[in-house]
């Protein structure tokens, strides 16, 4: 830009102009203190210089003087509305606030006054990825590419835009053109190999599997991720129904890893046996022989066998586990429990096996203290794991009394085994006896204080039992504890979703609504962070060429807010807000007092007062967690806009493609909002008439 075109307000004499360039340089190298000094020297002479004001503001924002900085940025922009620097700075400010929408508006403004500025274009393109504005991305990436066609990431960046717009042909073309610019393709280069695989992914997603296979074969030698080539090849061959070749491909995969169930399913389909139980049986018998250590080869048949075949298969599977003492035996078989016949089969097999043990090793009617080990043909642990299995089995099928009987026997047998106490706790929890359950879990914890898993469970069970302070003390044995000596703050920092959710739900049950809402909000903030965290990858992944992993990230983020932990906390929060709306405090009190005699009324008031006092009493451990000025969430509880607050939790769920249409919270909120609107309309109508 020539000096003549510079507007008067922006013009700086050569000396100050040099200082301004220095400010920019110091900012880039993060020497904020020096940069501020230089900026101030310019401002003493030209106190209204917009770009300097904006830069000073930006630096203040990064030096933890956000409010002052924000004001200066705005002032700077007002003083020089046509400066791309001022707009860029404003965009950077919004970006640091993770307000991506406003940030991208600012960049668009900035580009009006500097259409070819690569830095701004690059920053804008990152925001467009974040906002999933693929059309916009294509435009900005095109400009960048035309400026610097020799950089790989600018080609992939543009291909990404077309790919996301489902314009597979153009996406592929862009990558091919890039390959043409290379004199010789780099050998054994991971980034180049990833690029080739990304191209292959695009071809496959375009639906032309035959060409994808062809392309895959053509790049196979250059690709470093051999497994991925093998997996894609097998998948493509199967989809193309080139079955003999697919069989070979899956065999090769199984030889590499005989525990990947997908490979087993692949080979079933390649052989065309997936709908024929007899043939499947024969196949798995052969596979189990070939891959002796593969669990999948033995466990998959359990899902399709029935009758006597099932019994035989499950018997050898289970007995092997029980004699080896595999604590997870039940967890492995749990998926079969949807099928009643199978449950019966398993029960018979385990009970029969137990009978063969009852003469030895159970320590009850077995050998006494001086009995010789020679008489025992079964280890006592086999008996132990068997009754442990039965306890879990009966608990699962809704027979808590039998479950208790077996687990009590197991605890008498070996009271030092952590697992049996944990199982007892779970059985009691299912029965609804949360206090006894947490006592059992505590007994498990006492046996191994360094086991974080048991510690976590013990804390969770304490919260279920409403023992707020104890739970915090227990969980704090494994956290970085602050001045109060408790780890609640650290658990926020570590994004311990389970803890925040459980504690929130416990507070809800205890009537501590503010704290409950506070925790649900903390869960939402973590998810918002995860949404924001992808920002860094828009640049990083494209630059490093790890496009397949990046695509995985983008697609995962699309389903983020339908993850169990989010929906659980969000629905808890929405429910709480809705009940705050449905029965405001005053209405609750009035409803309770209606139709009572004077005497009863007084009594009820006293009781309510006691309850309130209880709910308002907060222990030390509840007062911590979070650095804000409302640690107890009182502001949230006393909100004047409960429906809008609830909506904040609902919106991100509804924005996910994966949300379950049976979730009715959106309607519940909308219904009440309509009623509210109708009422307001009526009110205003009343007033005007």
């Amino acid at each position: 830009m020539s000096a003549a075109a510079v507007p008067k307000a922006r013009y700086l004499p050569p000396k100050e102009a040099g200082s301004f360039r220095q400010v920019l340089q110091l900012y880039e190298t993060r020497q904020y203190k020096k940069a501020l000094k230089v900026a101030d020297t310019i401002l003493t002479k030209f106190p209204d210089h917009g770009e300097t004001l904006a830069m000073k503001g930006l630096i203040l924002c990064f030096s933890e003087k956000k409010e002052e900085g924000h004001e200066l940025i705005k002032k700077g922009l007002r003083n020089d509305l046509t400066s791309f620097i001022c707009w860029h700075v404003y965009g950077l400010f919004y970006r640091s606030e993770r307000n991506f929408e406003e940030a991208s508006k600012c960049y668009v403004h900035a580009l009006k006054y500097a259409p070819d500025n690569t830095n701004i274009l690059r920053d804008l393109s990152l925001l467009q990825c974040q906002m999933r504005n693929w059309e916009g991305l294509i435009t900005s990436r095109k400009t960048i590419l035309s400026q610097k066609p020799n950089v790989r990431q600018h080609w992939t960046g543009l291909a990404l835009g077309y790919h996301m717009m489902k314009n597979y042909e153009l996406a592929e073309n862009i990558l091919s053109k890039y390959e043409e610019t290379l004199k010789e393709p780099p050998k054994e280069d991971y980034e180049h190999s990833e690029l080739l695989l990304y191209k292959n992914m695009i071809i496959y997603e375009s639906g032309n599997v035959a060409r994808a296979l062809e392309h895959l074969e053509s790049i196979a030698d250059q690709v470093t991720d051999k497994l991925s080539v093998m997996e894609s090849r097998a998948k493509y061959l199967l989809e193309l129904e080139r079955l003999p070749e697919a069989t070979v491909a899956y065999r090769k995969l199984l030889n590499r890893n005989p525990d990947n169930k997908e490979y087993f399913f692949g080979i079933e389909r390649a052989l065309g046996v997936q709908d024929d139980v007899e043939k499947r049986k024969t196949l798995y018998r052969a596979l189990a022989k070939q891959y002796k250590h593969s669990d999948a080869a033995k466990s998959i048949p359990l899902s399709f066998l029935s009758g006597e075949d099932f019994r035989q298969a499950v018997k050898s599977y289970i007995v092997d586990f029980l004699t080896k003492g595999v604590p997870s035996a039940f967890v492995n078989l749990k998926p079969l429990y949807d099928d009643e016949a199978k449950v019966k089969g398993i029960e018979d097999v385990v009970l029969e096996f137990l009978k063969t043990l009852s003469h030895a090793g159970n320590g009850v009617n077995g050998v006494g203290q001086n009995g010789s080990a020679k008489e025992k043909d079964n280890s006592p642990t086999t008996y132990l794991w068997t009754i442990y299995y039965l306890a879990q089995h009966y608990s699962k099928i809704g027979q808590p009394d039998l479950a208790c009987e077996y687990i009590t026997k197991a605890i008498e047998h070996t009271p030092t085994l952590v697992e049996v106490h944990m199982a007892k706790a779970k059985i009691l929890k299912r029965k609804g006896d949360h206090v006894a359950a947490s006592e059992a879990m505590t007994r498990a914890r006492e046996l191994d204080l360094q086991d974080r898993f048991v510690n976590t469970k013990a804390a969770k069970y304490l919260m279920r039992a409403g023992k707020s302070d104890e739970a915090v003390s227990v969980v704090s044995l494994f956290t970085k504890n602050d001045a109060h000596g408790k780890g609640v703050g650290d658990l926020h920092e570590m994004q311990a979703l389970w803890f925040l959710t459980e504690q929130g739900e416990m507070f809800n049950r205890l009537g501590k609504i503010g704290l409950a809402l506070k925790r649900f909000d903390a869960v939402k903030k973590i998810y918002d962070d995860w949404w924001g965290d992808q920002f860094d990858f828009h640049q990083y992944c494209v630059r490093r060429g790890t496009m397949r992993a990046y695509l995985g990230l983008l697609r995962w983020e699309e389903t983020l807010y339908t993850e169990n932990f989010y929906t659980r906390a969000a629905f808890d929060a929405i429910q709480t807000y809705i009940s705050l709306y449905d029965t405001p405090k005053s209405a609750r009190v009035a409803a309770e007092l209606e139709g009572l005699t004077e005497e009863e009324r007084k009594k009820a008031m006293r009781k309510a007062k006691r309850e309130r006092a209880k709910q308002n009493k907060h222990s030390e451990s509840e007062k911590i967690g979070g650095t804000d000025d409302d640690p107890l969430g009182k502001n949230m509880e006393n909100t004047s806009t409960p429906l809008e607050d609830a909506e904040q939790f609902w919106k991100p769920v509804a924005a996910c493609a994966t949300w379950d249409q049976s979730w009715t919270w959106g309607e519940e909120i909308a219904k009440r909002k309509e009623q509210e609107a109708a009422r307001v309309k009526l009110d205003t109508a009343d007033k005007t008439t």
Partner: protein
Amino acid sequence: MAPNIKIALDDLTVNNLGVLRRINSVVLPTSYSDSWYKDSLSVGELAKLAYFNDIPVGAIRCSLETPPSHKDQTRIYIMTLAVLSPYRGYGIGRKLVDHILEQAKKMFVKEVYCHVWVENDDALTWYQHIGFEKGELVTGYYKKMTPAGDAYILRKAIE
């Protein structure tokens, strides 16, 4: 011997102290104080847990007795030895005691001894079976029993 049996000893630590507590409380008639358990952490190799297929099932806890006069010998006293009943007969108690005898040798201690209730025939036989000698009778040793129980001293000299 049944197949797949693995017996191993391991140290007593602050994290598994609850195991010693649990084993003693279900096997032994006497109960021990919190401070006794806390002190168990300071006797080093003289307290051990025994594992059967990775499950803790037995424990020994001794103390080193330094006599007031240097004329008397230093001895190791077995305060508690317990194995959960289903796991008896596998040589676990033997392994625990052998470990203590070995320590005694290393420490140049000449004697390991313990008290056994006169009516506990199984224990009396067992200690003698593994080479302990029955010594004098201590009348009224178990004060908390009603009537107070007598005990034999069982000792093993270390060469």
